[in-house]
Structure formats: C-alpha cells, structure tokens
C-alpha cells in the first residue's frame, strides 16, 4: 500500500471523527439530569471521546481494507465463498433448511424461549417473502407494508370474535381483505415511482394505524382487541380442561397436557404458511405475470412497448403481496390472542423492508438469512435492553459495507437452458 493512501485514509478518518464529534457532542456529551430543584446539564466528555475514537478507528480500518482489497482479501473471499456455496447448492441448502425447521421443535436444546424466537423469525420470513413480491420482484418500494399485516390481524380478530368462525375460515377472509387494501393503495400510487411511491406508502401505513387507534366503535381504539380465539388442531382445541362432551388435543391423542403443544402447533402453522408463500412466489416468477413484475422493475417504458399493462401488473403485485401480509397478520392475531395498534408501527415496516433489502432484493433465500440475522441479533442482545437496537443498526451497516447489494445478490433465472430442464 502506498504511503499517500494511508495519509488519505487517515485524513478521511479524522473527518469522520469530526462528524461524529458534532453528532455525539450534543446528543451524548450533554446529559440533562434532575438534581433537587431543576434540570442540570452534566457533561460526559469521556464517553464522547470514546465514541469519536471508535468512529475514527472503524473508518480507518474500513478505508485500509478497501484500499488493500487486492492484497487483503479476507472479507471478499469470505463472502464469495459464501455465495458460491449458496449458489451451487441452492437446492440442498433449501432442503437442509426446511428439514432443520421441521425437526427443530424436537431437538434436545429447544425450549419455550427458542420456540418463541423461531416463531417470530418465521413470521418475519413470511412477511419478508410477501414484501419481496412487491419490492424485490416488482421493484415498488413499499414502506407501509405493516398496514396489510395490520389489516390481516384486525380482520381476523374482528371476524373471529364477532362471528366465532374458525381460524381456517377467517384466514382466507383476512387475506382477501388485505389484498383488497393492497388494490386500494395500488390505485392512487400507480403513477408514482421511487421516492414518491415510498413516501405515499409510508403515509398509507400510518393512516391505517391511526384509523385503528381512532375508530373506537369497531377496533376498540388503543385498547386493542382481546380474547381472540386460539387456533384449534382441526377442531381439537388446546385446552387443559375441555368443555363437557368435547375432546381437546391432549385427551384425543392421550398425551399429558402441555402448553408446548399449542406452541409447536403454532410453529408448524407459520412454517407451512411461510413455505406456501415461498412456493407460490417461486411458481409465479415463471408465469407471464411474474416475469412482467421483474420486467417492470427493470424498465417500465420497455414494458409498455412490449404490451405489458403496467396498471394490472402493479395492482396484482400489490394485491398478492398484501394478501400474504394479511395471512401473516391473522397468524399474529391468533398467536397473541390480543392485538392493538401499537404492534403495527412504522418500525415494523422498516424491519421488513430491511430484511428484503439486506437479503438481496428478490432473493428468497436471502430473506431467510436476513431474518435470522436481524431478528436473531436483536434477540441475542436482548439483555442489553434499549441498546440492542445498536446491534441491529450495526448489523445493517456491516451488511451494507461488505455486501452492498444484499446477502444474496444474484438473481436466479426463471428459464433454464434447453436440455437441462428439471
């Protein structure tokens, strides 16, 4: 490495330090503390200098690594090895993953906590796969995806508590409602692209949440909906003491009652729902409409010149993406048995978008890896309480630095060479 390169990266790091100082100075450095009869400012310059130092050091290391890429290939070889593994053996990788997911509840170390985290990760995987249709395939940046999750959850909750219908009837209904809202959002944003689309979808997400808070008569406002029926195992409820003349899951199968039965059932339920989403996406990509989505992401004018109707194509993408969001929402409602508008804030949309983008737009396997990575990291650092979001942010920065196009950036063609069709 040249000497001037080092000087250059050193200067750049110092500049980074300056920005860090400007940011951390007032935010971290001046702490307001209430002592006796008022607020006082207590400076904590030590912490500030520590943070600024870390920024300078980090920036310097990144600079040096990128300048010495040719000699110093740690990260690039690591990541290229990783992608060659996942590319060449994508099928094995997927099958191993699914097998692991199937046996996971019966592994010796799996306890209640692991199951809860796994269910959460699977929910995000499903949401990621649903949003992948809109963002990854059709290229429509939707920052309000949580709205469809909310519509699904509330539809399920309201139908189930009002009419007492079973989960299996309410689930498709909730999906339909969400798809309807997808079209509702789709119409006004048809002409919008890029940033403008993102802003309007963001607004849509907030509108739905605010309606849920204020439409007290129907949604019960901020108090939420309680007593949402739990799903039953094909008519067999998971109850310790079933009603007179009724069988429950454990009495029917002659098992000792355990709350884990319900958790395991929920786990398989979301696993199946997520796999259906994935299967559907993989199939539809090979149909004309799926191919038209991807073409629309690439070039709208070329699409028009070839006779693709952008209106219908976009609306189907919004509707189908929303439908899967709605299914995930129903699952969320039945799992929690309680929902309130607080569960559907913007941060949820942001996390789902982050999963899709970090996974590598349009990559199904990437969504799985990104969900495990992002949700897993926030769980691992749960003990750090509010600071765990720093781990979340750090994870995103790391992926963007080393894999700027996402974990799995390579798109899989939908048509194979003639002769090796499988």
């Amino acid at each position, binding site marked *: 490495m040249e000497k001037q390169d080092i000087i250059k990266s050193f200067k750049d790091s110092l500049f980074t330090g300056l920005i860090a100082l400007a940011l951390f100075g007032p935010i971290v450095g001046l702490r307001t503390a209430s002592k006796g009869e008022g607020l006082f400012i207590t400076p904590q310059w030590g912490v500030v200098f520590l943070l600024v130092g870390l920024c300078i050091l980090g920036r310097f290391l990144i600079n040096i690594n990128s300048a010495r890429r040719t000699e110093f290939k740690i990260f690039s070889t690591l990541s290229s090895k990783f992608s060659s593994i996942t590319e060449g053996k994508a099928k094995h990788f997927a099958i191993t993953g699914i097998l692991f997911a199937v046996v996971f509840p019966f592994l010796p170390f799996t306890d209640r906590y692991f199951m809860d985290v796994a269910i959460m990760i699977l929910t995000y995987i499903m949401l990621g796969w649903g949003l992948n249709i809109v963002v990854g395939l059709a290229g429509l940046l939707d920052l309000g995806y949580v709205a469809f999750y909310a519509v699904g959850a509330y539809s399920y909750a309201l139908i189930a508590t009002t009419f007492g219908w079973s989960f299996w009837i309410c689930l498709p209904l909730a999906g339909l409602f969400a798809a309807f809202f997808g079209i509702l959002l789709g119409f006004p944003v048809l002409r919008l692209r890029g940033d403008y689309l993102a802003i309007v979808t963001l607004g849509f997400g907030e509108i739905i949440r605010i309606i849920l808070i204020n439409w007290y008569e129907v949604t019960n406002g901020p108090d939420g909906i309680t007593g949402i029926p739990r799903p039953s195992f094909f008519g067999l409820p998971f109850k310790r003491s079933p009603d007179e003349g009724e069988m429950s899951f454990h009495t029917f199968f002659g098992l000792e009652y355990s709350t884990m039965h319900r958790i395991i059932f929920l786990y398989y339920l979301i696993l199946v729902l997520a796999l259906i989403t994935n299967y559907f996406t993989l199939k539809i990509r090979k149909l*004309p409409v799926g191919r038209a989505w*991807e*073409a629309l*992401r690439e070039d709208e004018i070329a699409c028009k010149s070839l006779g*693709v109707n952008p209106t219908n194509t976009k609306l189907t993408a919004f509707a189908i993406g929303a439908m899967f969001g709605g299914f995930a929402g129903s699952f969320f409602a039945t799992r929690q048995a309680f929902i309130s508008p607080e569960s559907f804030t913007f941060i949820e949309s942001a996390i789902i978008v982050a999963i899709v983008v970090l996974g590598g737009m349009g990559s199904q396997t990437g969504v799985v890896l990104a969900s495990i990575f992002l949700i897993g990291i926030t769980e691992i650092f749960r003990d750090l309480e509010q600071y765990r979001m720093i781990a979340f942010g750090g994870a995103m920065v790391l992926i963007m630095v080393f894999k700027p196009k996402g974990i799995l950036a390579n798109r899989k063609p939908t048509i194979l060479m003639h002769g090796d069709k499988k």
Partner: protein
Amino acid sequence: MLKISNVETFYGKIQALRGVDIDVNDGEIVSLIGSNGAGKSTLLMTISGVNKARNGNITFNGDRIENKAPHKIVDLGICQVPEGRRIFSRLTVEENLRLGAYTNEQGKNYETDIKEVYDLFPVLSNRKTQRGGTLSGGEQQMLAIGRALMSKPKVLLLDEPSLGIAPKLVNQIFTSIKNINKEKNVTIFLVEQNAKKALELADRAYVLVNGKVTIMGSGQDLLKNKDIQAAYLEGGTKN
C-alpha cells in the same frame, strides 16, 4: 396500413409535433430522419400510445388507435423497439425474449418463434442464459429487435437502432432489418439520425424538422436532394 394525420403532441405546454402526416403502406420500409429534438421519438411514442396525441388521428388498417392504451396497440400488431434499447438488464437473454411474447397469447408458438429470432441473430442463441445487461451494445440492439419480433408484429417501429453501436454492427443490424422486412413480411417504420443508412434502406422517407414533415419522397430521391445532403449527409453544399 398505418396512417398518421395531422398529429399534434404536447409535453405540458411545449408542442413537440405540429401536425405530422405520414403514411406507411403494407410491406414497406419507411424511414423518418431528422436532427435531435425534431420530434422523431415523440412520434413513435405517440403511435405506441405512450404519449397521447392532443389533436389529429392515427389509424391502423382503418381502426383509430390514437386513444388506445399501449398494450392494446401492441395487441393490434404495432410493436416498438424503443430508443436506447431498454433491455431488461438483470434478466437473461431468453427471459427478455419470453417477455416479448407477453401479448402473443402467452407464447403459444413460443418455441418456433424463439427459434426464428435465434436464426436471425445467431449470436443471441449463444448467450441465452447470460444477463441482458452483460451484452455489448450491438447485441443488446439485436436482443431488443428480437424481443419485439416475439410479439409477432405487423409493423415494427424502430427508434434509432444505430445509436451507440460499432459501425460494423450497424451494417449487420441494417441488413437484419431488411431481412425482417423481406422475409418475414414485417412493415418497418424506422426513425434514424444516421440519415445515409436510413435513406439507403428505405422505400420511402420523410424528413422531420421542428415537429413538422418538410420533405418526403423515395429513399433514393432524398439521398440526391441537395438540401438533405447539406443538412444530414456529408459532402453536400447548400445552394
């Protein structure tokens, strides 16, 4: 076959076409030449229905098409190869071609159609699984033309097929255009800045200046026209 009468197209308040009249007959190659900003691409986009004509009308085999949506116009058999090729760069060559067959009853004769394209542009068949964006400019142009042919058009609108392409490949592409016209019996409406090539190829040609047709005639006549030589071809002198 394709009749454009008194078409006026605007971008907001700016008028791009000021009453254009052009006829394209069945089986012809018609060229439209003109400088930057003359309105050539606007005219093609107006025919395709991407831009709407404010006045005038366009008929195709007697049917009015100026108010039809772009995908309906492709359905009728008018397909455009847009300026700058606009290949779906992350999609493979074969996927690009497959998308061309989108309106063609979802590719009923897909296998034979795609074979015809590969016969016309053999280089594409070697690149089937390659991403569109990794092709050279000339190959991308071939792909764009092949993609449009997959919709089985009666009229092919070509917007500057020579743009940004190596001269050797330009010749090849123009030969292919001629073949498409003669062998596949596809009517061609060609918009070009490369006036010499466009006029040599054309049965008839028009010159567009500031959104109006100023000169029309057979390709050969226009090649000899002094004004055109001065303005668009090398070696001409203005009288």
